[in-house]
């Protein structure tokens, strides 16, 4: 079994934290993993993505071939669209619905949303609003991870919860607790 995941968003939105949690869970589960990250210039408010590959067999390429990704997990709706050629008809897109407008020519929002919704398999939520409403303003990315977890079936929800606990342990019990709640909130949204 394998899962090829494209994590994307805008520099500074916290996609690498999602990658760290999934990576931690994968290592604990004894899976093979490769994760190509973007460092440097594009982290300054540009589009960023990370190729995350999990498999119970050896993984060759650090990059995911076009058409091979099982999942896009995106912190921003237009950024999700940027990578759809990496998907095939069975792949899923899990994305935040909140546009990040730091460019003058951002597409018309209704048209953009229409295109996202027209993809074969999509889960889209305003995770920033959900995070604020549920008193977890810094955990929008973990809500998104929870939403994606059903389709991350190479790892169980409990394995991901354990990884969240481990990744955030240095920041204290409260932060761990909040992020576990964020994950469960996302999980329930992803299942509906």
């Amino acid at each position, binding site marked *: 079994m394998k899962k090829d995941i494209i994590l994307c968003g*805008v*520099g500074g939105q916290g996609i690498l934290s999602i990658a760290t949690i999934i*990576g931690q869970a994968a*290592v604990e589960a004894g899976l*093979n*993993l*490769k*994760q*190509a*990250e*973007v*460092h*440097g*210039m*594009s*982290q*300054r*408010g*540009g*589009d960023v993505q990370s190729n995350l590959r999990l498999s119970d067999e050896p*993984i*060759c*390429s*650090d*990059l*995911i*071939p*076009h*058409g*091979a990704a099982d999942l896009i997990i995106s912190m921003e709706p*237009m*950024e999700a*669209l*940027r990578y*759809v*050629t*990496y*998907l*095939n*008809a069975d*792949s899923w897109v899990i994305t935040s619905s909140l546009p990040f407008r*730091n*460019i*003058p*020519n*951002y*597409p*018309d929002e209704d*048209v*953009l949303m229409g*295109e996202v919704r027209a*993809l*074969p398999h999509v889960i889209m939520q305003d995770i920033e609003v959900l995070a604020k409403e549920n008193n977890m303003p810094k955990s929008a990315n973990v809500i998104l991870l929870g939403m994606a977890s059903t389709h991350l079936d190479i790892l169980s929800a409990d394995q991901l919860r354990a990884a969240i606990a481990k990744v955030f342990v240095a920041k204290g019990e409260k932060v761990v607790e909040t992020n576990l709640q964020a994950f469960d909130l996302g999980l329930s949204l992803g299942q509906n």
Partner: protein
Amino acid sequence: MVMNRKLLLGDEAIALGAINAGLSGVYAYPGTPSTEITEFIQGNALARQRGLHSRWCTNEKTAMEAALGMSYAGKRALVCMKHVGMNVCADAFVNAAVTGVNGGVVVLAADDPSMHSSQNEQDSRFYGKFALIPVFEPSNQQECYDMVAQAFDLSEALKLPVMMRVVTRLAHSRAAVVIGDARDVNPLNPDTGKHWVLLPAIARRQYQSLIDKQVSICQAAEQAAVVETPAEGCKLGVVACGIAYNYVKECRMSHPVLKISQYPIPKETIRKFAVQCEALLVVEDGQPFVEEQIPGLLGADYRVKGRLTGDLPRTGELTPDSVALALGVSEVATLPAAQNLAARPPQLCQGCGHRDVYAALNEVLDDYSGARVFGDIGCYTLGALPPFQSLDSTVDMGASITMAKGAADAGVFPAVAVIGDSTFTHSGMTGLLDAVNENANIVVVISDNLTTGMTGGQDSAGTNKFEAICLGLGVPAEHVRVVVPLPKNMPEITRIIREEIEYKGVSVIIPRRECMQTLQRKLRQKK
């Protein structure tokens, strides 16, 4: 026995491999994608316990030379840089092959095909060939870890510096690595030989000795080459170098593969491999280094496919897709490309002091139709993009000051240079001395954010020293002006820029305010 496995970036695997190979010091200037190597060593417990040198250097040349000094003293040294850093240290690098080394020296060059964070795609393997030294090229994170120790061993066996070359996708990709035990550092044992004194008579002997070592260097590369499937009568054989090997394997085709992970190119192995195939496909990330050498090896009639023939793209990094296409893998059905997409280029952070510098420059230079602004390498290069569009050039580290001087020599007025604090000490100071010595009519803006910002906030060599440096180089004290780049100070900043443009000679304006990224990091740590 439980294996010690760690999830590491390629860069981190190199760093840990070097520490465990008995490293005594890393010498480096930050540069994407090489920066994380030195950062890892700075944060490593064993490195701290052993007191390894890991402070940042002023530039790649000072790094290479200091590493050579450590080697002279008998200890192992690692030099790290991005590919263009090789240009900066080339003098020391090439001559280090002539002096030879005492303690092992590994020069790590991280190439950036596709120019994710760079201004060219130069392939560092050419530098290794030029200097006549061995080059290692790992294909994965485990090889990054393992090869550093091999490279140090070969360096000490041959008494030569050894290069290791990686590309962005390996430097910045994470995988599990099996970690071995750490061996001891070398004892202090300064060399007493005269081979370090490259007077012509000695240099000639040393150069001959370097040539004599080529047989052993070539043998080592032949031994490192791996032929995976014995070819015999097949149509296409694949020669895969470094990370390209992974893309070839991703295709799961049955072609025989010759994997190259050490240079000079293993000529005998390639020859034997080639006679068993009708044609070769050379898959290598970067420039066609191997592909160009093959006609000399196999004759012009032997069919070779690769980047030069268009079977693989001539520019940009390889991808599993481009390699699959070259291998004739049938295309996979994908979702169609999206319609509602806009490019999202990187930009200066909100609140960044460079923004205020460009706002002020733009306001003043609107009044001077002949104004030209020569930029440099760093975050502030983004001032070339909208909304500021303030820069007319960006070439290499330090070129802002010297290009402004040359343009002023030719009659451009006003000629303005914009350079960051770290870039100024890296390569700007000598150019400023040229300008001072001729009293060139230029304005140099040293936009000082107290850090090396672009690469993530490393210490900057000149922090707190800029006024003293400029005065020491001979800029008149009344024309070294310091301002705080904030919107509320705009009237003062624009006035000072105007005054210094009108002054006929070299002036330096230093807008100084801490980088938003490092400031926020410090605030988070305080919490």
